[in-house]
């Protein structure tokens, strides 16, 4: 059920929900884009939300995404006009007006920038995206899998520059990256221009609604608005963009019955069993399943840890194995193999989840996704698996999700002289 529009209240839900999948979102950048979105809804009113099949044949749809570094965005602040400028440039190149906008993915700033773009241009926002989860490269989309090209692609920078890349083959990422760098580290891209029919066939449907639902139900995210609402009179020392689930017990999540206050004991103090702080409410809209709950007992860096500065650009993490000892049920050992994200989960040696599904470690205390880089022995986690959209399950989908389907894009290849 797609709500008809996103007004001020829905925007706050969207913002909370957009953080669910975004491990390691840059808080300052996220707050900046959220403030832009709040200003946009205040000035321009609510944004219509249409289902993926709602754009229809003969109507031009355009995907919108942040490219580059969100740290740079937090430093070189946006004008707010970048998303609309990018779309307008693409329209000029195509000689047609866009009639609907679609987020490239729903991670943090991306969801909000699409909203800013829709509010600024007066176009409806499509309830779906080109990913269904989060992947780092511009081509890693279900649009690519459906044969839609990212180019022509228009970039709008905070300096007011507009660059249109006409056709790039598979070199789009290499072309965009230095341009973005020259522009100060970030830009907004309008890309994947396609017909409404193509969009309906290739987008992962309903993801905006999922984020709205996750943000609305059971979650309470401290988005840190010093001016408006008064979050922060507590917990101010404990984080801003911080989702806390409240009463997962009451949500209709499948797993709730089995998971009351596991681990909620401290120094022998009795804590009523109903006081679970679960993550179900947060992840339920994504159809997530809980793989296990346990304690991290080991963090390894197989193959000798290269120093971070020796890592390829854009992928600053190194291969990491995280071992979780299940603290309930079968008390299995769950091993998570990660490089930038968790790629594979093995329970007592048997694979139980793998990419393209998204495997997340979540802190049950506060519903936050735990970055692989921050995994430390002793931390209590829930391992949650979000099933990938069907398109990612094809051989092409698996290859693209791994970043291996596009040779020149491989970060290692970029390093070669």
């Amino acid at each position, binding site marked *: 059920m797609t709500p008809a529009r996103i007004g001020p209240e829905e925007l706050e839900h969207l913002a909370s929900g957009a953080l669910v999948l975004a491990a390691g979102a840059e808080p300052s950048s996220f707050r900046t884009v959220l403030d832009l979105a709040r200003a946009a809804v205040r000035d321009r009113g609510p944004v219509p939300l249409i289902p993926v099949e709602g754009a229809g044949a003969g109507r031009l749809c355009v995907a919108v995404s942040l490219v580059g570094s969100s740290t*740079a965005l937090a430093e*070189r602040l946006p004008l707010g006009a970048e998303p609309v400028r990018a779309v307008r440039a693409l329209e000029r190149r195509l000689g047609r007006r866009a009639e609907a906008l679609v987020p490239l993915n729903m991670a943090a700033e991306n969801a909000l920038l699409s909203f800013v773009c829709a509010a600024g241009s007066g176009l409806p926002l499509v309830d779906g995206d080109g990913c269904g989860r989060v992947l780092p490269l511009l081509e890693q989309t279900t649009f690519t899998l459906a044969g839609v090209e990212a180019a022509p692609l228009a970039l709008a920078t905070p300096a007011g520059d507009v660059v249109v890349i006409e056709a790039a083959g598979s070199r789009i990422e290499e072309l965009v990256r230095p341009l973005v760098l020259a522009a100060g580290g970030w830009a907004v891209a309008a890309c994947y221009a396609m017909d409404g029919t193509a969009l309906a066939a290739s987008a992962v449907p309903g993801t905006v609604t999922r984020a709205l639902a996750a943000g609305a139900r059971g979650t*309470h995210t401290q988005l840190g608005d010093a001016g408006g609402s*008064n979050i*922060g009179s*507590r917990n101010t020392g404990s984080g801003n963009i*911080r989702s806390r689930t409240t009463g997962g017990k009451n949500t209709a999540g499948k797993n709730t019955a089995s998971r009351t206050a596991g681990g909620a004991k*401290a120094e022998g103090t009795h804590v009523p069993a109903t006081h679970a702080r679960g993550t179900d409410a947060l992840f339920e809209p994504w159809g997530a399943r809980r793989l296990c709950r346990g304690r991290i007992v080991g963090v390894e860096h197989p193959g000798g840890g290269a120093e971070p500065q020796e890592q390829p650009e854009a992928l600053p993490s190194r291969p990491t194995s995280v071992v979780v000892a299940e603290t309930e049920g079968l008390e299995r050992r769950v091993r998570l193999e990660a490089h930038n994200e968790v790629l594979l989960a093995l329970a007592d040696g048997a694979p139980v989840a793998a990419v393209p599904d998204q495997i997340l470690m979540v*802190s049950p205390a506060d519903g936050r996704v735990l970055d692989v880089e921050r995994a430390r022995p002793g931390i*209590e986690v829930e391992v949650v698996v979000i099933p990938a959209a069907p398109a990612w399950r094809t051989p092409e989908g698996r290859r693209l999700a791994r970043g291996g389907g596009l040779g020149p894009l491989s970060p290692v290849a970029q390093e070669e002289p």
Partner: protein
Amino acid sequence: MRLGIDIGRATSVAVLVERNGRVTAEAAVPSRAGAGASVTAVLQALGAAAPGCLEGNGVEAVCLTTDFARVPAPLGPVAVLRISPGSHPALAPLTGWPDATARAVGGLSGVADGGSSMTGRQLAPLDRDAVREFAERAAAAGRNAFALCAAGAAARAAPELTAAEILAATVPGARISLSHEIGGSGLRERENATVMNAALWDWAETLTREVGHALHAHGLSAPVAWARNDGGLVSGEYFRRYPVIASASTAACALRGAAAPAGADRAVVVDAGAYEVRCAALTDGEPEPGEAGLGPGGVWMEHGLPRMDTLPKRAVPGRDGNGESDRGGEGNGQGKRGGESWNGNGGESWSGGEEAIGGEGEGEGDGDLPARVAWLVAGVTERAPGGALLYAGGAARAAGAPEAVARGALRATAYGAARGTTRVELERVVVAAGDAEFARLRDQLCGQALTRAVAAGADPDSVRVDRVTHSPVSYLPRGVHRVRVSATGDPAGTAS
């Protein structure tokens, strides 16, 4: 011996601590409105409890906690100049601030073209004329406190330094708060902290003067150190220059003070003050660092406080499991706050609650406080397991601490201040082509941090770099690193 003094909201506590950590005398009195009066009262009590303990030259350093929110103090007016290309009006300086704080600071702000990207590349040449015009405008308005924040200042400080020269030349006697000295990622958070730093100058001036008089009156002439929000110490001079880093140090001191006598490297500490219960974790003796949040005046910034979970008024999930459990502190928030806000303007309170812990509550009773605290502890323990459970604060008994533990808890904060080490932190973004260049830049920063630590009151013989962390900035070319250096040393005069 060091003398630790915690001027709390309800109680002022003083402890005399020997070099080996042993407490030789302690006293607690109800806090007075003025910091000087509180110090006087608690020192009298200390003198009465252990006659002659303050005489002679036994006290090598006096270490004090700070709490800007304890008694509302007026914020000083500040002229705010951002050096950056233009941005959306919703992101302008001072936007999103609580009205009262923005009013107190004076609302005089401007933007001059200039600044750098994260890679240190110039975004625009500094618009010197705009800086000069702004300085003249501020001077005409009678301002002489300035806050300067340039885009990319962590990567390149030059635009801020040049603009500061212009300001100083245009406005004689100008005092300037520079964002690259305050640090922090994200222009808006750093700018806010830089502005509040300047706005707190008067508060720090008054506090150090009052306390200085009170100490002198008791014949104490030892160097005075002030605790930072992370529990480290800085000299009075440094505190008066950078008060924003030491505007709420009671929390971190409580954590360290509870852990130190227990010798606990890993601990979960319940800090049960008169008005709220906070819980935080220490790993390797260090509090878990917090993230950005509401700082003094209800302004969003990186305040350097430990990450703390605070017990909301009715926090424990109700027995009806109505899902409202964990949000008690927010609700609509209105009408839930008393006079404890950062500047008495009714704006966001950083840590103020008004329901006295262990008191009557509001008809709801606090009989279940230990259960609520246990729930709070469970949450913290999940993310930082394996540590001892320790207590700090005067309401520790009511929060569930055993009788014997609760007695030591009252003095934990003052003890934590007394056991502190001088500490400074430096944060920069460096761009290095290779490992050798990176190592050179890192060493340079370490040198700067050491110099700063001495400037902050550390004994030069004891000063050392105790932590260097660096991480590449994602989605920027390799070689762009954020580097944080922490340097520490014994407060001057106390080195053994």
